[in-house]
């Protein structure tokens, strides 16, 4: 059985950059455990020798030709940026 505790929820939230209040951690752990438990019912099915399914429809990956068909739209690309300068996205300083 899966067992997600408070600390795991906090870690996942941090990795996903989602802010979760301290008092929401415990309830979320419960919810996540419920979801995982529900999915784990699938373990009852014997899947030996069965390839993982990558699509529900019988489709193949579409390939594109190596042609430049896009780009040259700096303005649209930057349009939703909270801040842009000189054609760059300007973000709070990220230092190594």
């Amino acid at each position: 059985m899966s067992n997600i505790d408070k600390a795991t929820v906090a870690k996942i939230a941090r990795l996903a950059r989602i802010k979760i209040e301290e008092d929401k951690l415990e309830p979320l752990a419960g919810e996540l455990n419920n979801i995982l438990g529900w999915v784990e019912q699938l373990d009852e099915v014997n899947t030996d020798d069965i390839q993982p399914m990558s699509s529900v429809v019988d489709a193949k990956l579409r390939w594109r030709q190596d042609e430049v068909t896009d780009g040259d739209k700096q303005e649209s690309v930057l349009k939703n940026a909270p801040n842009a300068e000189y054609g760059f996205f300007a973000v709070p300083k990220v230092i190594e």
Partner: protein
Amino acid sequence: MSNYRIQGATGDWEVVLGLEVHAQVISNAKLFSGASTEFGAEPNAQVSLVDAAMPGMLPTINAECIRQAVRTGLALGAQINKFSVFDRKNYFYADLPQGYQISQFKHPVVGEGTVTLDLGDGKTKEVGVERIHLEQDAGKSMHDQHPQMTYVDLNRSGVALMEIVSKPDMRSPEEAGAYLTKLRTILRYIGTCDGNMEQGSMRADVNVSVRKPGDPLGTRCEIKNVNSIRFVRQAIEYEAQRQVDIIEDGGVIDQETRLFDPSKGETRSMRSKEEAHDYRYFPDPDLLPVEFDDAFIEAARESLPELPDDKKARFVEELGVSDYNASVLVGEKESCDYFEELLAALAAKTGKDAKKLAAKASNWVMGDLFGALNKASKSVSESPVSAKQGADLLALVEDGTISGRIAKDVFEIMFETGKDAEAIVEEKGLKQVSDTGEIEKIIDEVIAANPAQLEQYRAGKDKLIGFFVGQVMKATGGKANPGMVNQLLKPKLDG
């Protein structure tokens, strides 16, 4: 086997090295979008809404990028996987707008292969390649343009990279350098990566660990994003010594990511990236598996040019070029192209067999041409003397029109002016004198003018023949055919 050892207080330590090389794929468009891959454009001008990770945008694989990865795998004699899967590698960084990189984790497109290192003096060593997978490059962050801001340019975001992962088979900085050099040469020959390390189109993560010879592997540290072959060697030397010092002081090595600082020549910890290692890979739901057939692989195989190792063997065995010359020429694609073009033109012009000309031509390229290029700080592709012009010059020597000595002078003028050899020879009247009568006349004059030397020569100082040859050459401005001078001079001196 390498004998590279770190001498510690407790004895000798062996260094174990593996490299992950990121090589930007040569293609017109990006891995999953139709935006251009060209270097040096205005910021964010080569960005599609897919590359900017706008909601609802879907990636579509660029066929050429798959073909290039397959060609690279074939050139390394590697297993090609007809079924491979793209996964999401999740991490947060400002220049990764998706919040994940599309990469290949469990099922890479290329499996195990080999790179043969050239270690000098004809010594070689095989280094295993673990896998090659395709992935997206990230954008570029600039931290030094604004006091509070980082500027992000997404032009590079989504360009295809091949990550070429070696096995931990290298044992010295030299072997790691030789591996990168060889890999770069192969990629450039087959045209799957331009190998330009300064522009970042090829960069290496270096895994370093140390152990006592015969012991199991030690804990490794990964030095990220080293962008020159020299830095790779320096980083390894520093890092291996650092690890030995820690262990001998009773400490343990933490498995971590480090950065190499070229200005200080040292590596330092990148603690900020620790957490980022929890990548939570899963198959990308936007992309079906990549599948192709044998015909696709065969077509890729047929598109490969002669590979560097084969070329070198052919130069040595079929053309009689020295092992050293062949190694150097083959090492850089441009040098090799120049030599081959020159040899073909020379053979055509003289009507002689390339086998008879190759050794001489290789000596000329390696000596005269490379010497002049080095002095002028120019690369082969910037040579003011084209391969065709070089061949014309050598043809003049070959048919006896000018001597080898004069050829050097003519070459100097060609290098400066870009003019053709024949024009220079004509203009300056440098044609070799091969007329017996004319040479004999000059010899007689020289002998007559130097009675004292003649007497000494006849008294047994036969080394003085060199003096007479010199005088004859001087009198003809170096144009006399040296072979004929030698032939005609001796009987006259001997009386």
